[in-house]
């Protein structure tokens, strides 16, 4: 069924991604890939270290050609674009896309190409419009498009842009996304 969960976040994302993953029921064992915008000079393992404190699953900074495994959380390394191939990751240092590297659009587009309707894309808080085109690509290929409710988001530009770009399957407060994913990934499997 669903094979990959992609999360994109920018301003305010450090906390939002942590909360989302801390709430995510352990039965949801799809690999989770996170593209979070950071300053290129930020500590290279900063985000992964922070997440490890809150998340019970293995959290890794992606390396080139790393295989994608169930139950793991993968973080796009700062200053690289993260792309998904079937079964593994690829990195690139192509120029920034909409001022961002990693670019959420690049991650989501490549993921939707590799996994089609097996992708769940989630756009969280952020102060730019990265991710909107990527989420639309996920949706176009039959994947699921989820967006954090702009009202509760620390910055609403990014969720607003995502909602404008595609017909989201659900717009949810942060604290409900984990449970929603549980329903999506487990209940459908039973039926």
């Amino acid at each position, binding site marked *: 069924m669903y094979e990959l969960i992609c999360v994109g976040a920018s301003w305010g994302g450090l906390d939002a991604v942590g909360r989302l993953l801390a709430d995510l029921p352990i039965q949801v064992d799809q690999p989770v890939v996170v593209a979070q915008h950071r300053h290129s000079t930020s500590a290279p393992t900063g985000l992964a270290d922070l997440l490890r404190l809150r998340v019970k699953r293995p959290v890794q900074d992606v390396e*080139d050609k790393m295989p994608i495994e169930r139950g793991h959380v993968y973080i796009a390394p700062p200053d*690289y674009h993260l792309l998904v191939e079937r079964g593994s990751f*690829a990195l690139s*240092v*192509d*120029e920034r896309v909409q001022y961002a590297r990693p670019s959420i659009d690049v991650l989501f587009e490549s993921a939707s*190409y*590799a996994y*089609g309707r097996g992708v769940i894309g989630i756009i969280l808080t952020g102060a730019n419009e990265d991710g909107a085109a990527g989420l639309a690509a996920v949706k176009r290929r*039959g994947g699921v498009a989820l967006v954090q409710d702009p009202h509760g988001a620390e910055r609403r530009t990014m969720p607003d842009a995502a909602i404008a770009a595609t017909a989201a399957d659900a717009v949810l407060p942060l604290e409900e996304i984990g449970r929603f994913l549980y329903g999506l990934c487990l209940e459908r499997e039973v039926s």
Partner: protein
Amino acid sequence: MAAKADEQAAERDDVDEIELGLLLEGVYRRYGFDFREYAPASLRRRVWRRAHAEGVSTISALQDRLLHDPACMERLLLDLSINVTAMFRDPTFYVAVREKVVPLLRTYPFTRIWVAGCSTGEEVYSLAILLLEEGVYERARIYATDINESVLDRARAGVFPLDKMREYTQNYIKAGGQRAFSEYYLAKYDGAQFQRSLVENVVFAQHNLVSDRSFNEFNVIVCRNVMIYFDRALQDRVHRLFYDSLAMFGVLALGAKESIRFSPFEDRYEDLDANERLYKKVS
């Protein structure tokens, strides 16, 4: 309805994949440029970008234009050539080179260093500065290669954008630089002209990692952020090339997010500094 749309999208993607394969084969047979084993996800983005810029809506249509119009091929080549680089990129890498590689170099009467995929040369000038400050430059020769002639010309010229000097100075300091960075260049109207003496012992030459062979035996090979553009099979072949080109106890330096771990040569190297991707050939 929705399911039908998905199936159509999936079908389009399958066709797209066939078209991309055919285009790369065509480009290879018509022009000799071999991108057939480059990592597909990034390649596909680039090719589509060219298709959109040319105003065509399928990769096959782009292929048609490419095969009949060499100027279009030139434009695609520019799109496919990713030359992003910086001086003292990843400063901690240069610290590790100072602390762990330079002591090895001191034990040799002469060292040969290969910087593969050197792009416009920023990495080469950085390395030269480091070796100079450590007093081992005199006894070293750097072979700096790239597939792309035009970046090599810029590397030879050694003029880098002035507006980058702030960032590079920061990097240089973090990399353990021992002088004022501005000693190494002259600020001119068209950029920062780096000292010619830095490239006195550097040979710039074209070399294609896909098809060209080894051309010497080296004590150090630096290949950073180049192999990320290759697929696994090509990476493995390039790893063989590097392995064959390294002297025993020579050092292989990869990019910050590349690892020897996913290659068949893993067992032939020992970690010199696993964090900074420095590996020593031991068997």
